[in-house]
């Protein structure tokens, strides 16, 4: 155990901090779930890429810095502390990118990774289907091979596709063996969202923005080369991606440390310093965010030493999502009647509250995560 940073890590942190201080926009960008905000965030991603900060954990050849997990966490700490914009590139750089690096063909790596790193191409995910919410294995959208075997012909429907309203490409899993059921016979496929036959219907979320969409597939032709990880292996490829999502990359601790620091500032500014109940509640939140940070450092050390993330990653998902709701509930409690106003000086807290409510619902509801923990970590009998 050594909880101090190496000279190399310190230098990396200093470099990131200096670049961010010089480049982070001084005025917050509009939400990337609006048309205008999406393009502004794309421009910010291009600037990040110029500084070689858009995908720090990727290999250098694809625009990254080969940063190990610890450095990635350090970058995240500096990134969120600097007040930089949210990552519109999340689906690509953090979810699909690592999967392509792991299982993609050389051609796929060359074709997709650089454009992803630059955000020339921004990705939507397309996991869920209307009748397969938390039950991801019951996917029914079909991809059939064309007669000459050169294309998939896709029909069906996806829902809750994040970023799909304005993204360029999407990835998802489709049933390629019509005789199969559940986890078998699924294939992971990539395609441009402007392919003929695709219709995107944006869905307005609680705050009115369109962070996700339905995608309808009507005889959509996709070259067979866009298969990722082999025909019939879609479930395994998706799970690798989703496991990483839940376990590490979806919510890096720095976001919560920064949010709790803002909560503390708010408390100092408008809270009653003699009110122990609020003081204790804010302290609890601080401990949760700090605990989550420590837990993540333990996890990445384990990964660096050759270990694996298993179903324990479900613990993370529950932890951060509940913590995020709680932090925002507390902030609104501090704000009192001001919390009702959504356009004022505290807009960010109200927005953040609404956003936090999605945490326990998406990437597998927390109920599903508890089942996973019980079945696979605690080894309780399946229901």
């Amino acid at each position, binding site marked *: 155990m050594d909880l101090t940073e190496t000279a190399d890590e310190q230098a990396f942190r200093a470099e990131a901090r200096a670049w961010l201080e010089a480049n982070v926009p001084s005025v917050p960008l509009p939400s990337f779930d609006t048309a205008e905000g999406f393009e502004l965030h794309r421009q910010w991603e291009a600037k990040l890429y110029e500084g070689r900060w858009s995908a720090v954990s990727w290999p250098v050849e694809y625009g990254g810095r080969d940063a190990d997990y610890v450095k990635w966490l350090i970058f995240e700490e500096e990134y969120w502390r600097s007040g930089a914009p949210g990552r519109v590139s999340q689906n690509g750089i953090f979810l699909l990118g690592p999967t392509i690096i792991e299982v993609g063909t050389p051609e796929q790596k060359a074709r997709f990774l650089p454009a992803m790193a630059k955000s020339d191409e921004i990705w939507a995910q397309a996991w869920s289907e209307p009748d397969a919410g938390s*039950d991801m294995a019951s996917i029914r959208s079909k991809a059939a091979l064309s007669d000459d075997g050169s294309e998939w012909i896709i029909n069906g429907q996806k829902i809750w596709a994040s970023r799909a309203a304005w993204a360029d490409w999407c990835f998802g899993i489709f049933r390629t063996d019509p005789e199969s059921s559940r986890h078998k016979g699924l294939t992971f496929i990539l395609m441009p969202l402007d392919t003929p036959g695709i219709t995107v219907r944006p869905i307005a979320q609680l705050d009115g923005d369109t962070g996700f969409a339905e995608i309808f597939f009507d005889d959509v032709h996709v070259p067979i080369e866009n298969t990722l990880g082999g025909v019939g292996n879609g479930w395994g490829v998706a799970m690798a991606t989703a496991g990483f999502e839940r376990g590490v990359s979806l919510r890096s601790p720095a976001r919560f440390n920064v949010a709790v620091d803002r909560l503390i500032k708010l408390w100092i500014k408008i809270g009653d310093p003699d009110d122990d109940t609020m003081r204790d509640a804010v302290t609890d939140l601080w401990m949760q965010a700090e605990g989550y940070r420590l837990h993540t450092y333990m996890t990445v050390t384990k990964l660096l030493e050759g270990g694996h993330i298993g179903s324990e990653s479900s613990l993370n998902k529950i932890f951060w999502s509940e913590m995020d709701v709680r932090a925002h509930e507390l902030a609104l409690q501090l704000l009192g009647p001001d919390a*009702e106003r*959504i356009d004022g000086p505290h807009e960010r807290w109200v927005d953040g509250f609404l956003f936090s409510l999605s945490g326990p619902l998406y990437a597998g509801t927390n109920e599903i995560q508890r089942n996973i923990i019980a079945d696979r970590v605690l080894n309780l009998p399946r229901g």
Partner: protein
Amino acid sequence: MKFSFTSDQQQFAAGLREMLEREFTAAHLRHVWETGAGHDAALWSRLAEMGVLSMMLPEADGGMGGSFVDTILLIEELGRAAVPGPVFETMTVGALALAGTPWAAGVADGSVAVTAALMGERYVPHTAVAGVVLLSDHDSIRAIETSQLQLTEVEGIDHGRQLVTFAGTETAGAFVGSDRETATDAGSLAAAAYLLGLSSRMLAIAGDYARDRRQFGQPIGSFQAVKHLMADALLKVEFARPAVYRAAWSHATDSDTRARDVSMAKSLASDAAQKAARSALQVHGAIGYTWECDLQLFMKKAWALMPAWGSASYHRRRVSDAVLGPR
């Protein structure tokens, strides 16, 4: 000792519920949101006609002369339907403060809606439809015609409760009946009853969804996790209920424990609404997170009313002072 409502009181509430189920569905509510109307004028007239709006107004003013006990179930029903506009404000604070004034007749016939900001709020809701705003002045209340104020619209989370900031209040208006504490207790209690109805409605919406929606080959309501989530929320709602009804009795009889009882009611009702909203959303999953899902109309009203008229923690402190002595 008899802790129940008369059959007249129950029947009036049941009649109101039936009317609202028929004539003010979630689609009507969404329409009010989308048009920015602030309330539903036809519904308002209908409520005036039924005597709902003037239940607490003295008969001498053309009202029904009812007590808070006569009124509490009605407010709960209005909450169940999330009726927009200053409805519980007009019925309670409005009736108390404007009794005997020239505005009283307007409250009775539905031509005057009343809103209030008696607790130092920076914003006042409902001014788009309310003709009179009640503001506190030390321990008293002044009634000001909305047209006399300089209002600036701001955006609130609940489109059935539009917000403005206000100025020009220094001298305008007339002092009216009711002291500030009686009126804020009335508003707080009315908000509690409204939240109670709202909470029941959110659980009903979640129940419908849980019976209907299937996952893993079964309706999701058959999963223990969903059952227990909803049972725990119901527990909070059902144990807030008697506190709200008792506070109506305490307000109606001007009991020594009125402040304590009203604060207990608002504190428990706010907490119950928070739990009901969270649980209903969780039962819905992603669908509940959309603008299209009706649940949001009710959740946002709950989130607006939880801090309004004193938050759960404000009112809990008031109970503390009564039960444990002042801090």
